[in-house]
């Protein structure tokens, strides 16, 4: 980090970066440790939410201090993540449900009332 940053900026930036790393690592660990497919969909969200938020906030603080003015465009990253991540998550969840129903696994039947006669 640049030498002309004061300690009051360096410390929170460092804490935020470490926090982000810890949460992203936990998300990856969860993906490895969990056994059930749907359980494994939850931990990676740690990286795309609080992990990304902490880095964005650290970047805003750091570059605002370096350029001695607000540099806030990093907040666009969490916003764009929040808009795009649901597309893949929904697709994965729907595909997994479809496959598991086809395979006769223990997942809830379709919630649309049109098909109640096939309910398990």
């Amino acid at each position: 980090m640049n030498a002309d940053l004061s300690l009051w900026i360096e410390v929170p930036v460092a804490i935020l970066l470490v926090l982000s790393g810890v949460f992203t690592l936990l998300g990856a660990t969860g993906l490895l440790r969990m056994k059930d497919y749907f359980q494994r969909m939850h931990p990676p969200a740690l990286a795309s939410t609080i992990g990304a938020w902490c880095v964005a906030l650290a970047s805003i603080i750091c570059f605002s201090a370096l350029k001695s003015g607000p540099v806030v465009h990093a907040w666009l990253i969490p916003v764009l993540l929040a808009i795009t991540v649901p597309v893949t998550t929904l697709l994965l969840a729907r595909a997994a449900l479809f496959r598991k129903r086809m395979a006769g696994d223990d997942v809830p039947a379709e919630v649309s009332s049109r098909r109640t006669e096939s309910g398990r």
Partner: protein
Amino acid sequence: MNRLFPAPWLSLALWILWLTLNLSVSPGNLLLGAALGFAAPLMMRKLRPKRAHIRRPGTIVRLFFLVGRDVIMSNLIVARGVLRAGRRPPNSCFIKVPLDLRDAHGLAALAMICTVVPGTVWSELALDRSVLLLHVWDLDDEAQFIEHFKSTYERPLMEIFE
């Protein structure tokens, strides 16, 4: 006006997005961003069957902070669950949430909220939009969860979009 700018707020948002990404308000960027804001909604018009009606900015701001708080809490719960997974596996399960929200844009926003909160995964929406199948990371009390879900996310979204 409506034909040229089918979604004026989207045009404005795209223009601001362009200027923010480039960190510049030079005439060239002002023009390029304006062209993007003008052209993109026109090209996308066929994909948007219905106009979104957004009201109550105060509710939007409140919902934004409520979701932010829930995301942080849920992050901590999932992180703790991962750490303790060996000794106490989380009580993950599917639940069915009856929905009163019918507006397509409101449901899209609800899907975003469900995905952003790590503890929930939006799994399936009934064809008539009356029931939502949700996968929950660690469920204590189903009735309490549904009540929280409906009062915190669904009701504000109904106020905003319906």
